[in-house]
């Protein structure tokens, strides 16, 4: 059998149990030290990446993994931000504000999903796009709570005295801890039982249901989780940006989140991170190049990235580590057993095409 067994160095490196344990440790250490050594500006940028990486991660849960095109993710980010901002202004404890943001977004997501998950395909896209589109005037209408079109400021990100940290370092640490936890939990969730269920709901609802997986319930579940994660992202948004207004949830941002998700890599955890980075860094980059041509440059970059990597940035990583699965299967074993004809008859009359002309004419 010609099935090539890949034994490239990258795949064998990843097989090494020591390395597999050492790499996460190294990552944690690096993340712990980085905020201390980086400049304020870099820390700010990293924190913002964290905010949007979490938002994209939520979108990935509902769309990348479960296949429901959601154009409403930014609404939940906005909702989380508003609830946080409101809570802080009312003098709530920050933890309480965090929980409230999560809860509000999750409950709103649940309610929307109970209705929207009955629809499929593009219909769900249109119903979810309504969230930001209606959310903006709604936020204005509820100006007593939201501050109307002038928005809501909340400063609650000062580093506690005891830590001896600068504000930007403190902010980044908080983003790293919360964002990191969300990423790890989500990663585990989309690997096992629920990940498989989400994937089959995306792939084939009829099959899903015949496996005991109610597509409706799992769509609602995925949507709710995505909203919850959106709410967390909203909390972080408020923590990092310290301001929100109706413009936060303008539907253009929802579409940008979608683009970031696909560019990072749909259905990929690391892709969510890359998507968040894309969301934050590309506008900065294009601003550096020529701030009057940002739209043009962003369009070019988006198209160029996808043209080279249709599977998103994460597919680059995946490409580098390909073959790992094959070699995991054990070399030699990966060939189908076939009817043992060749040993018995090969050679006897093979490659004698002359004979086939003897048929009817």
């Amino acid at each position, binding site marked *: *059998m*010609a*099935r*090539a067994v*890949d034994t490239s160095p990258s795949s064998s490196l990843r097989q090494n149990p020591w390395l597999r344990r050492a790499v996460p440790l190294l990552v944690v250490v690096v993340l712990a030290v980085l905020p201390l050594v980086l400049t304020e500006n870099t820390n700010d940028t990293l924190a913002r990446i964290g905010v949007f990486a979490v938002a994209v991660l939520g979108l990935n849960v509902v769309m990348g993994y479960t296949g429901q095109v959601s154009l409403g993710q930014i609404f939940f980010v906005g909702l989380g931000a508003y609830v946080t901002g409101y809570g802080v202004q009312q003098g709530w404890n920050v933890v309480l504000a965090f929980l409230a943001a999560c809860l509000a977004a999750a409950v709103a997501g649940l309610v929307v999903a109970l209705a929207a998950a009955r629809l499929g395909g593009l219909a769900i896209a249109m119903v979810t796009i309504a969230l930001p589109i209606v959310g903006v005037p709604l936020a204005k209408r509820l100006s007593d709570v939201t501050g109307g079109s002038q928005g809501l400021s909340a400063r609650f990100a000062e580093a506690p005295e005891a830590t001896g940290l600068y504000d930007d370092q403190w902010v980044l640490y908080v983003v790293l801890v919360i964002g990191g936890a969300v990423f790890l939990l989500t990663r585990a969730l989309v690997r096992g039982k629920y990940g498989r269920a989400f994937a089959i709901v995306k792939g084939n609802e009829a099959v899903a249901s015949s496996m005991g997986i109610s597509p409706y319930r799992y769509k609602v579940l995925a949507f709710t989780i995505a909203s919850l994660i959106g709410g967390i992202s909203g909390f972080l948004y408020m923590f990092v940006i310290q301001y929100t207004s109706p413009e936060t949830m303008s539907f253009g941002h929802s579409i940008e989140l979608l683009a970031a998700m696909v560019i990072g890599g749909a259905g990929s955890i690391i892709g969510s991170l890359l998507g968040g980075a894309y969301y934050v860094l590309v506008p900065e980059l294009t601003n550096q190049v020529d701030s009057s041509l940002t739209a043009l440059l962003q369009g070019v970059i988006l198209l160029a990235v996808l043209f080279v990597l249709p599977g998103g940035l994460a597919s680059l990583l995946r490409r580098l580590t390909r073959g790992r699965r094959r070699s995991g299967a054990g070399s030699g074993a990966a*060939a*189908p057993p*076939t*009817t043992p*004809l*060749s040993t*018995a*008859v*090969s050679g*006897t*009359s*093979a*490659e*004698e*095409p002359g*004979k*086939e*002309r*003897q*048929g*009817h*004419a």
Partner: protein
Amino acid sequence: MTLLELEDVTASYGPVQVLEGVSLSVPENGAVGILGANGAGKTTTLRAISGTVRAGGRIVFDGKDIRGLRPDQVAALGIAHVPEGRGTLGDLSVRDNLRVGAYLRKDRKGVAEDIDFCLDLFPNLAERITSNASALSGGEQQMLAVGRAIMSKPRLLLLDEASLGLAPSTAKNVYDAIRKLRLTSGIAMLVVEQNANLAFTLVDSATVLETGRSVLTGTSAELKGMDEIRRAYLGG
């Protein structure tokens, strides 16, 4: 006169090479079968001919090397492929599927006649003529796929398990009709078929594939006489 000649054809999906040298030839107006276990490369061989998988070696149709042509260019030369699985356009009605089959033809009248011919051959389709193809039963979809191929009036018909999911009598009718087409219109065919008993009612000769190689070629009679073939493909 050889219509189609495969010489040492190789093919791969990405890095995985699955055909390692398939050779066979189909004479003008001939009918050749391909036998082989699951995964032997039968489907891939047909796909190599119709241009849906990248192939190496030589694939000569009517004196012209067609390797590297796009599927629609191959079809335009008169090769119709009934693919494995659902070979229909699900969102189009049964009639539209048949009309698409005749896309390359310019003779309006002939097309209308051939649609009637297909509906005669497959009464099920006549009953569901305005239904979306995706609403049809598995067997009905298979009928439609065959019908679509017939509609194009090909010179060479590539049949990939055309009897899959067909009731025994229907399968037999289809093969009878194809045999008749061969007599009346001079179509040649290359037939992949797990139901070897059925296949041998149609083909004059067959090639046996094993892990991407043609290991054995012979006339129907020769092959039917071989123990291994009987045990693996014919039963009894």
